[in-house]
């Protein structure tokens, strides 16, 4: 599938306003082909564009797609032949390489796994999960899924705890996979942060142009336009960085992995600050669910953990690139 086609798809999706619930929207994405394994073959720029657009619309949808793509990408990078009709479950907020809480025992080409993995994103009717370098079936008596846990953000996408007891899975790749997957998914994670930031900024600007205080539109107060300028400049800088590093990655330029890791962490941190300011521009209105700012704030703080603990990622960055 060409990148242009992907962009057309997202445009089609954004025009479909009939679907109301998260499930319906997810189904629409599936019908449009966003969960096809072949999409993972696309260039990073195209994937990022899709995720940014989706995150600006609803970050939970973007995260659902991200987690499926990350799982599918892991299988693809390992050249593991597995084609599922259903989305794949994936612990997108956990360090990809984290396995210390799992007991594993390789036996006859299978791997027997026992342990608990928290906050796995269960997208749609997932039948399998990718956990670190294991492919785990979610059906059968050895796997227990918790009820969805309450979370700060991305609330419509269920987060469940998976408990495995002597579950027969497959070790589909060696530990070398982890760095590759990190590299490949860093920019998509950054794109989600940027999408959330963009929609927060858009709403703040719109509100500032219409809401009056002190007898004039609040955008005319210099403290407000100064804050909006700051937000816009931060967003533009982030967008430029993401675009540049995506191009580097697609061209296979040396060092793109380093820049991708750095861009992801910076944009995820930026989204937290920017969405907080986004509420501030709206004042009390921004704190209510009547506007989208409070959701974006929650989603930004939540999705900063995509690909794992930020300090751990900085440590990993130092170890690999400095």
């Amino acid at each position: 599938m060409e990148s242009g086609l992907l962009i057309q798809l997202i445009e089609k999706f954004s025009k479909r306003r009939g679907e109301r619930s998260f499930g319906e929207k997810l189904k629409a994405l599936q019908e449009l082909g966003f969960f096809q394994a072949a999409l993972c073959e696309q260039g990073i720029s195209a994937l990022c564009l899709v995720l940014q657009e989706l995150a600006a619309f609803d970050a939970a949808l973007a995260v659902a797609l991200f987690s499926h793509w990350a799982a599918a990408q892991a299988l693809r990078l390992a050249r593991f032949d597995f084609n599922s009709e259903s989305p794949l479950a994936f612990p997108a907020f956990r360090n990809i390489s984290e396995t210390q809480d799992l007991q594993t025992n390789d036996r006859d080409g299978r791997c027997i796994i026992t342990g608990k993995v928290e906050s796995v994103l269960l997208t749609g009717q997932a039948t399998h999960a990718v956990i670190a370098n294991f492919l785990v079936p979610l059906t059968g008596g050895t796997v227990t899924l918790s009820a969805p846990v309450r979370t700060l953000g991305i609330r419509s996408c269920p987060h469940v705890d998976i408990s495995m007891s002597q579950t027969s899975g497959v070790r589909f790749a060696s530990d070398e996979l982890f760095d590759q997957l990190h590299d490949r998914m860093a920019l998509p994670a950054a794109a989600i942060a940027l999408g959330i930031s963009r929609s927060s900024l858009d709403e703040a600007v719109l509100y500032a142009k219409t809401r009056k205080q002190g007898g004039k539109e609040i955008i005319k107060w210099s403290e407000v336009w100064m804050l909006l300028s700051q937000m816009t400049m931060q967003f533009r800088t982030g967008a430029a960085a993401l675009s540049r590093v995506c191009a580097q990655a697609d061209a296979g330029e040396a060092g793109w992995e380093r820049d991708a890791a750095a861009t992801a962490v910076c944009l995820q941190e930026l989204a937290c600050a920017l969405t907080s300011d986004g509420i501030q521009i709206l004042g009390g209105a921004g704190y209510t669910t009547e506007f989208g700012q409070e959701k974006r704030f929650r989603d930004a703080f939540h999705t900063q953990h995509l690909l794992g603990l930020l300090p751990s990622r900085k440590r990993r960055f130092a170890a690999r690139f400095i």
Partner: protein
Amino acid sequence: MASFDSILSDTLPLGIRAAARLPKGLLKEIRHAAALAKAFNEEVVRPQALAVDHRIMDEPDFLPHQLVREANERGFYSLWLPKAFGGGGYSALSMLAFSQELATECLGIGNLIGSHYVGVALVSATFNFTVLRRLCADIVAGEKNGTPCLVSTAITEPDAGTDMEDVDLIDRGHVQCRAEKAAGGYRLTGSKIFISNGHLSSWHIVTGYTDLARPSESSVILAVKTGSPGFSLGRIERKLGQNACPASVLNFDQCFVPASCVCLEPGPAVAGASHRDLCAMLVDDVLAMSRPGVAIMAAGAARGAYREALRHCLRPQPGVTLLANHEWAQSLLAEMQKNIKLSEYCAWEAGLHMALDGPFRMLNGRFVFWLLKLLPVSVAKLFFGALMAHPSGRLNMVKDRLKLKHEGRDRSYSALGSLAKFSASDLAIENCRIALRLMGQSGFRSENRVEKILRDVKLLQIYEGTNQLNRLNLFKQVIGHGVSGVSVFNE
């Protein structure tokens, strides 16, 4: 003159100077207030806060009556009312300690109690002790008969939010709550929004305006009782956090308010001060009283975030070095402690300034403090109650308040209140941010509490004036004051 500049240039912080001036018994009272909150936290708040938060997310119109009753049974709605009016007579300073402790567990529940006292403070700042006595009587009776009587403050309107926080802005705003003079009182028509505890309160202290084109000169402050004809409760806002404390819409449709419930109305100058001047002082005083409260709650919430982060860092995980043993994590935990301490210092400085230099400073003088402590309630009621409710009592209070204005002391405590509020709330957000980063995906799970603290804390940057407005108030009150060619809100 105790201007802000002189406070800044004084090498002694107010806390040190206050130590020499405050009665020793006050320290005991402050400790007792903190202990009360701690026990309430352990027995009620921590076991219930998350469940209440979740329930309101699922059922947005649910009201936490049980929590309000628990606080009522413990006397929390009258402890800080004047002893002369049947209250516990506790100092506003001890409320800082109480609020901070409560906020370590739940800001929403803290606000269930704190915002009640903002309503009381608003009536107190009008120096209308007749209305205050009536409110206090209802609150105290409500504690005795088990029916909580809370007070809300209704100022913000749909098209006037920040405008209501400063008299210099209000005339340019778009206020719509009209108070028309009628035989024997006023008729109130309009709506108020974002009213903390609106659906839980029995009394609402409402601002209306006889002339919507000139609100600063025509403000009327009315005490409206729930159930009054023409008064109705509107929707409860769906919001990010502080769910335990409902933010209500109040509607008034020709609601009649009798003269006995009029706290302040336009009239001739009092002791040389115009009605506008009196209103400006009142707005400044109420905000200067409430902002240190917001700051100390921020310090409490920052401590709550720290506590949960530390707990996470000390939790052993198989095969992994304890998080607390990583230097980078130690540094972040130290940063969180710094934020807590800085917030506490700011809030207490602002609170002490208000206690020592504010309009009710006499209550913190040694003589009056001990007199009120030692006098039997019946004698206090008879003596001070009568004195305060007498018309000359109000006149003397206004004169004393004007003295603060002439000396510039009101600008100092207003500025310090703003400084404390915006500093502490920003630092509390910072602590939540650090906690979430230390905790990773554990942090965003509701059961680990930090995500709720973040959602709750965000409101502290908004209410009692956004932090942006508070920065401007700091500039207006002290930095730009009296400087030739400098003005505020006039660009």
